[in-house]
């Protein structure tokens, strides 16, 4: 039982990080191979704030998000103005640099040997709560002028600029939000595992996150969620797979983008409307009708809509 709880908790941790990457890459079109750095920053910040300074867990979470977002500002401000390829390379460089700095952090970070003694705070219910809030927040952001701006930037940055969108500012915003999510994920991770090592946040971790988003579908939050659940569960459930899981991530990345670039779900989103249809056969119909009525959703056109019109 504890094992399944553990798996579920890890799913929640990964979900937080993956949602961030989904926003950045899937919705805003910015590809980054160094996102694990923000998870690391969040994890270590929270570990220090809660473990060494004795602050409550909530403060740790907030500090993690803030630290990661701040780091993203520092790195993002000079590098986001670069065209696609260059930014991805810079992000990769930043990811590796962060790991190196943590490795050499001496007493502050515990160096390569690790940071032990992180207080355990992440129970399953807390993790689920945080993730649920995270999902709701992300959906709200995406279904607003902010989400529309992000997607416009992804589709055609020049045109978005011509339509009055300050693309530099919004790209920075997307990066900061996605970093904050990864930071929170990192904090959850730190207080679940109770020890940290820089190698946990290496290129493999960044790849894992990127592969999940690509596999689930660039531009679908639901896809990212589904892919995350699948790609976290399968290696856990099928232990022999575990050794090959990184092989699989690499393969997933290539084959998805070559064979089926839209991933599992394309831009399909599970909305309350669609949920309603599924549930309408249920006796719980009445409750859902009340809930769903407040949303201004569009009609069910074919294919997916990332902005709900």
């Amino acid at each position: 039982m504890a094992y399944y709880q553990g798996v579920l908790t890890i799913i929640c941790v990964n979900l937080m990080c993956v949602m961030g990457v989904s926003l950045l890459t899937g919705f805003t079109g910015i590809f980054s191979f160094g996102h694990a750095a923000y998870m690391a920053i969040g994890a270590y910040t929270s570990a220090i704030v809660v473990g060494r300074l004795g602050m409550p867990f909530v403060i740790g979470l907030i500090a993690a998000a803030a630290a990661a977002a701040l780091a993203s500002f520092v790195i993002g401000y000079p590098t986001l103005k670069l065209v696609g390829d260059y930014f991805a390379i810079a992000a990769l460089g930043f990811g590796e640099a962060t790991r190196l700095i943590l490795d050499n952090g001496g007493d502050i970070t515990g160096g390569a040997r690790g940071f032990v003694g992180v207080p355990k705070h992440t129970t399953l219910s807390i993790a689920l709560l945080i993730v649920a809030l995270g999902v709701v927040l992300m959906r709200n952001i995406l279904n607003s002028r902010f989400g529309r701006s992000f997607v416009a930037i992804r589709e055609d940055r020049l045109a978005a600029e011509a339509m009055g969108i300050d693309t530099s500012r919004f790209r920075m915003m997307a990066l900061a939000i996605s970093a904050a999510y990864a930071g929170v994920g990192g904090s959850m991770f730190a207080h679940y595992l109770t020890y940290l090592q820089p190698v946990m946040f290496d290129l493999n971790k960044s790849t894992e996150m990127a592969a999940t988003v690509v596999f689930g579908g660039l531009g679908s939050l639901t896809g990212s969620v589904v892919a995350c659940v699948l790609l976290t569960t399968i290696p856990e459930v099928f232990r022999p797979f575990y050794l090959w899981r990184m092989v699989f991530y690499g393969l997933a990345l290539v084959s998805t983008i070559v064979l089926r670039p839209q991933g599992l779900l394309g831009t399909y989103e599970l909305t309350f409307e669609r949920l309603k249809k599924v549930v309408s056969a249920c006796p719980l119909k009445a409750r859902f009708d009340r809930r769903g009525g407040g949303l201004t959703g569009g009609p069910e056109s074919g294919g997916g809509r990332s902005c709900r019109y």
Partner: protein
Amino acid sequence: MVLSRVLQQLMNGLSIGSIYALIAVGYSLIYSILQFSNFAHGSFLVIGAYTGFFISTAASLPFAGSVALAVLTAGVAAVVTERVAYRPIRERNSPTLYFIIASMGIAIFCEQTIIATIGPKFRTYPRILSTTSFNLGPVTVAIMDLWALAIACVCLVVLQYFISRTRMGFAIQAASFDLQAAGLMGVNVNGLIGLVFLIAGILAGLSGVFLGMKYTVYPQLGYLTIKAFVAAIFGGLGSLPGAIVGSIVLGVLEAFISAFLWSQMRDLFVFALLIAVLLVKPSGLMGKYVEEKV
């Protein structure tokens, strides 16, 4: 004797820089044609390194033969990669983003497959090229480094000749300006791209063999290509002379920092250089930065 130390590091830097140059040139070549960063370049390197290792330890070929085979294998791997992964993306006119994703996927797949099958243990090349060194004045030069430097120079000169004097070379130059136009002018684009990848793969495989001999062979050997990437960007993505210059300079700077400062700083320095270049002059020393047409 500071001067002797300086000269020594200069020599070291030159030696590692020439290996970087082999990698960076291939990488820059691919970038100039297809306008994307081939993150899978490290895989070609690793394939070359491992193939060379296995053939030279297992088979009774003369060493040169093993190297040739290893290098060829890497070249073939590159061509296959292009054919299987990049061509479909190119033909579908997908955004450049997809190339990056695919190349990264291949890099991870390759590295992890090696770890899962062959194992992460370090492998050492047989002592074919003597590890002895000789003294050139105050400087100690390893024979192997000299060979690497010599062969690298020869390769680069041959490549330069090929690009600037042969028909195929002209076609490559044309394609680096405008792939579509070159195709319309009758250039066999698919064949040309295949050739470019073959060349890049061969160069990467060669550098892999050298690195394998100089250090050891391990799955993460491909990570060294990141440094070559930085060198290529520093010298100017898309410019072959730039890649060479950038690599030499980077190699030398690395050697100096490693020796005179903190060796851990070496890698951080590389990343700092990357950020600095991207901020100050993204087109590098000799590169061309193409404006997007509105």
